[in-house]
Every structure is written in C-alpha cells, then in structure tokens.
C-alpha cells in the first residue's frame, strides 16, 4: 500500500502528474449516467418555472401580432412595408440576413465541431440546432413576403408550368432560394436524427399516453441496440459531412445577393468570408444569449459548464475580430481601389451620411465590445458575457441595416437619394418574429430534451473503453475548477456526484 500511496500522491515539490495531465472535465462533479438522464428529462417532466410562463405568454401574443402584420401585408400589398425607391430593400431583407446568420452557429457546432471531434459540442448542439431551425423559419418569412404576391412565390422553384417561366439561374437570388431551403432541410433532418435516441428515452419514461405515442412515433422504434447505434453513427457522420459545406455556402450565397450587383458599397469580393464570419459570430452570441439563462434556470451547470461558455466566447472574439478586419479592409479598398463611387459610398457611410450613427453603433457592438473576451476575467463573468452577446445581437442587425440601407439611399444619382423610413407594419413584423422565435424555443424546452442525453454520456470518462474506475476516484480528489460567476457550482464529490 505504501508504494501505491506514493504513486497516487507524490510528495510535495515533485511535479504533480495528475494535475498536469488532467483536462478540464466536460461534465462536472462526477455525474453519472442516470443523473444525466434524470436531470435533462426533468426539464421536460417537472412543471415549468414561472419565468417560462412569463415569457411564453407575451411571445405567443407577439407571434399573433406577426401573423396579423403578415395577413395585412398579404391582403393589402407589399406597400404596407417601408421599402420603396430608392431603398427597395429595407428592414425586410435586413431581418432576413440577420435571422439566417444566427442559424450558422447551429450548423457549425453540429457539423464542423463533430467532424473535428470537439467533444464539448455535445452539451450545446441540440439547443444550437433548434435555434438554427427556428431562426431559419423566421428568416424565410421575410423574402417570401417581400415578393409581394405570396401566392406567386412558387415561381421561385423550377417547376415546369404552363406560363413556361423558367428561373434565371444566373441570379444569386435564385441560388439563395436553393441555399436556404437546402440548409433548412438538412438542418431539420440532422436535428431530428440526433433526437431519435433521446425521443426513445422520453418515450420510455413518460406516463402520459398521448405524449408516449407521439414520442414513440418519432423515436422510429429505437431500442438502443448495438446495430442501431452503429447505423446511427454512420448516418450522423454522413449528415455532418453534408452540412459542413453548408456552414460556408449559405451565407456566401446570401452575400452574393449583394456582391454580384454593381452597387457601390456592395460590389466587393470580401463579402463572402466577411458574411460567413459574421454569421458564425452572431450565431454564437445568440446561442449564449439563450443558453446562459437556460442552464441557470434549469440547473444544467454541470453539463453546460463554464468551459463551454469560455470556448464560445473565444469563437466570438475570433470571428468578431475577423468581422472588424473586414470592416477596415472595406474602407481601405474603397480608397485604394481608386473607384470614386466606392469611396463616396463609404464616405457617406462613415463621415457625413444620415446613417453614420448606425455605422458607429455597429462598429462598437461587433468589433470593440467582443474584445473584452481576450480577458479570462470577462469570459468568466456571465454578466459581461451576456452584455457582450446582447451587443453582438444588436450589432449584427445593424451591420445588415448599414449594408442595405446606407448603400441604397445613396446610389449613383443624387437625384434619387432619399431617407428610408420603416412602416409600423414592418417594425411589428420584426418584433413579432422575436416572439415567434422565443415561443418556438420555449416549446422546444418544454417538449424535447434540451441537451443530447445520449451524446453527453459519450464524453464521460466511463464511456472510454480504457476507463479505470480507480483512476477516476483518484482524479476526483482534484477539485473541479470553479468560477466567480458560476456561484452555484461547487467542486468535487461533496456536491453529490457519487460514482455508481
């Protein structure tokens, strides 16, 4: 025993092997399999907290307002929104790009982080994918209604028809239709596939006959057998590979809507990478905006740890800095290109146009604010993280507003210059989509496991084939790290993480 003791606890002064080699655990407090299942299922099974009700009621009414605005638009005409010459694109396309950008975090987490074996994704991917799908639903509404005659929207699809209209395949607007619809379809399939094992868990747990039937219907007869898991893993890997290009392609195509035009301020080659970075940036901010409250309210801090928030904050500072680089490069190229119109467009944007306030607001929110994340103290303080994420949410909307409106209101001909005024229908349509988005996310929390139960278990030490329970006991002595902002969390086995 003496030798073993010496082996496990080296004398003071000797290098501490265990501390050096240990990675920060992805699930804190030595939680075991059954705790994870019970904890995540409890979000669905327990009565919802008061805050849930406080949020769902107004978001439901905002959804009704959105439906009302859209009904008014369809029955009256697209003129009830603000866009008109010279700004034929206004809040509607701004909102579209804003929402579609938010969705990108979900695909990045679910596809690219999966293929690169970033195990921390498991706690985040379910909610991020749900957020993606809901954001794309909100996004799709705007261009669909922007066409004006909504009943003609099927002209966007290349369906042989008696009018013999055929789509203009040279138009990026058409690529957009394909990009967004592919993105939505693949995201839904990916999300659903990941849900199947967890739906089976819920099916086996729930007592309610209707819920059980519904969970069973969508669980597709999942029993959790070895063969099923094998097929599942293959399908999941294939879908991850299929969605990976979508992370880059969707917002690239959205940026083509602008970049392939000849409008000064839009006609720039930097748009695709700049838009993709911005989309991931905005998406991660939205994931954190949603999940920091969720983990606190439902007590999921052991699964969605400070490590996750730390990682995502780092991605935000990286992509935010890329976006900042793109802003500055746009300005540089506007001057360096020698294009008079391009230079003028940016002078209007940053110096003496009517929307300079929007530009500087955007610049502060997207470039300056995220720089806080260089500091560990800021990444560990959830109030700071939330504040920065809120800045980014607003900043990314302003970015699209700046790109669209400041450009269109100062076109080639001074005679065509005008201000852009959103109508009340337009404003409430946008606010309404927030209600719609929130409502869908709250319903998701209420009915589906917010964290992938099956996948989180796979990142526990027990899931490793070479797992040695003795080593786990030894490692458990090293207290898990704690953070100032995460005051509910206490390290070590004292918190109740018994090893079963």
């Amino acid at each position, binding site marked *: 025993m003496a030798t073993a003791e010496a082996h496990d606890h080296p004398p003071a002064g000797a290098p501490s092997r265990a501390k050096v080699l240990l990675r920060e655990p992805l699930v804190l407090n030595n939680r075991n399999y059954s705790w994870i299942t019970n904890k995540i299922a409890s979000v669905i099974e327990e009565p919802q907290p008061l805050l849930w009700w406080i949020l769902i009621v107004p978001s439901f009414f905002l959804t009704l307002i959105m439906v009302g605005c859209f009904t008014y638009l369809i029955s009256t005409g697209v003129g009830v929104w603000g866009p008109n010459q010279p700004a034929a694109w206004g809040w509607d396309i701004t909102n579209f790009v804003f929402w579609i950008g938010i969705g990108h975090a979900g695909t990045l987490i679910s596809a690219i982080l999966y293929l690169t074996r970033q195990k921390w994704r498991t706690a985040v991917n379910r909610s991020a994918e749900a957020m993606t799908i809901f954001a794309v639903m909100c996004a799709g509404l705007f261009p669909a209604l922007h066409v004006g005659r909504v009943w003609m929207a099927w002209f966007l699809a290349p369906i042989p*028809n*008696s*009018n*013999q209209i055929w789509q203009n395949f040279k138009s990026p607007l058409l690529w957009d239709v394909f990009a967004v619809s592919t993105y939505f379809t693949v995201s839904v399939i990916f999300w659903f596939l990941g849900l199947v094992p967890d739906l089976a868990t819920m099916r086996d747990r729930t007592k309610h006959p209707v819920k059980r039937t519904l969970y*069973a219907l969508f669980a597709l007869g999942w029993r959790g057998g070895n063969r099923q898991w094998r097929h599942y893993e293959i399908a999941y890997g294939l879908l991850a590979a299929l969605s990976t290009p979508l992370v880059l392609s969707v917002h690239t195509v959205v940026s083509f809507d602008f970049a392939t035009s000849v409008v000064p301020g839009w006609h720039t080659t930097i748009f695709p990478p700049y838009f993709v970075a911005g989309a991931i940036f905005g998406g991660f901010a939205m994931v954190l905006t949603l999940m920091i409250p969720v983990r606190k309210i439902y007590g999921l801090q052991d699964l969605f740890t400070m490590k996750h928030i730390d990682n995502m904050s780092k991605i935000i500072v990286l992509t935010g800095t890329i976006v900042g680089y793109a802003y500055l490069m746009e300005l540089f190229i506007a001057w360096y290109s020698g294009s008079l119109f391009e230079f003028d467009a940016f002078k209007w944007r940053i110096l003496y146009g009517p929307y300079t306030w929007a530009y500087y607001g955007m610049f502060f929110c997207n470039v300056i604010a995220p720089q806080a994340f260089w500091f560990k103290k800021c990444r560990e303080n959830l109030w700071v993280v939330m504040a920065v994420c809120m800045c980014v949410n607003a900043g990314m909307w302003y970015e699209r507003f700046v790109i669209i409106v400041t450009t269109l209101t100062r076109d080639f001909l001074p005679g065509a210059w005008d201000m852009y005024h959103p109508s009340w229908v337009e404003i409430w349509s946008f606010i309404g989509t927030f209600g719609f988005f929130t409502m869908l996310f709250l319903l998701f929390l209420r009915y589906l496991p917010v964290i992938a139960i099956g996948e989180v278990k796979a990142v526990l030490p027990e899931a490793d084939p070479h797992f040695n329970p003795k080593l786990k006991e030894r490692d458990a002595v090293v207290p898990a790290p704690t953070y100032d902002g995460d005051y509910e969390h206490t390290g070590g086995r004292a918190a109740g993480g018994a090893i079963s």
Partner: protein
Amino acid sequence: MANIFPRWTNTLPLKLLIALGFVGAAVAAGVTYYVTQEYTNKGYMPSQPIPFSHELHAGQVGLDCRYCHSFVEQSGHANVPSSNTCWNCHQHVKTNSPQIAKIKESVETGKPLQWVKVHKVPDYAYFNHSVHVNSGVSCVSCHGKINEMPVVFQDQSQSMGWCLDCHRAPENHLRPLDKITNLNWTAKDAGREQKEMGEKLKAAWKINPPENCAGCHR
C-alpha cells in the same frame, strides 16, 4: 413493457403511402386540367350584336382583313371597324335586312355598335399589334382561320406559354409581308419549308423577340 402501437399499425405506413398516391394523382389531374393551358379562354365564342360572319366576308367575298381592321399595321392596338365601314357597302347591299338596319341606326345616331371583344390581353402584359404584323407574323398564327369562322372564337390559348413558344422560336411563324393576311397561305404554296424560310426571314429582318420579363411586363 406493453406495445405502444397495436399490431394493425404495422401496415399503416404502406396504406398511407397508397392513399397519398391517390391524393397526389387527383391533385395532379386537377392541376393539369384547371391550371395548365388547356383551361384558358381557348374556344371562347361570345354572341355579337350582329351575327356578322367572317366566313362570308373574309372567306367567300374575299375581303382583305385590313379593309375593316384598317390600322393593324400602324397601330399598337388592333382596331374594330366603326359602323361607317360597314355602311360603305351596306348602304347598297342587303339594305332591307333587319340586321343592317342596326348599322344604319348606328351610323345615323353616331352611337357605336357594342361588339364583344374576343381576344383579350391582360393589362399587365404589353402587346403591340403592329410590331407583330410588321415582323411577318400572320393573322392566322394568333387568330386561327378567321375566314372559315361564321362566328369568331378564340382559336389559340393565348397564354403566356403560348406567347413564349413563338418568342423563343419565331421562325415557325414568320412569312413574307405580302402573305400576312392570306390566311390559307402556307410555305408549301411557295414550294418552301416553313422552318427554312422562317430562319432566313428572321436573319434578314433581325427578328429578336424579347424573352425577359420586362419585354411584356413593363
């Protein structure tokens, strides 16, 4: 654990699939009938204030179309003749007919006859009649054999797809300008193939019909 789904549900997906097949077929049939070109105004034959026979006037008598529709080559809008045009002949011909009396009344009072329009182009489509006629598109291409119609009806579907058929391949309809109003004439009568002749005319006259949206929806 008891089975959640009873045994009969095993065949349910198959049954649903078959039912969906029937529904899909019904929808496809409905769309084909009501939405496609077959369901246009083709065949529309309104009754006119006077049972004027194009078969008699343009066919048997052999009047040129442009005697009555006098501005089809000059005007964007193809005109219907005023009662005075009828009166040129009918002040001498069949003067005791009660139908001709209507024309007489119209001429004397200056109150026009209310002819019912057969071929309607919607407001959102720009259509210039003279451009088509002067480009070598015969009356017969769009209106059919009017000279054989006792009562005029819409011979072609005149849908957007039908317009585009010709705009995409005008060579199938172009003919020499002096044969425009000769409704019985075909390229065969001149010992030529329509396609080959049409191609030549298209090249010679630089016929380049618009195919973009704004060509017609201005």
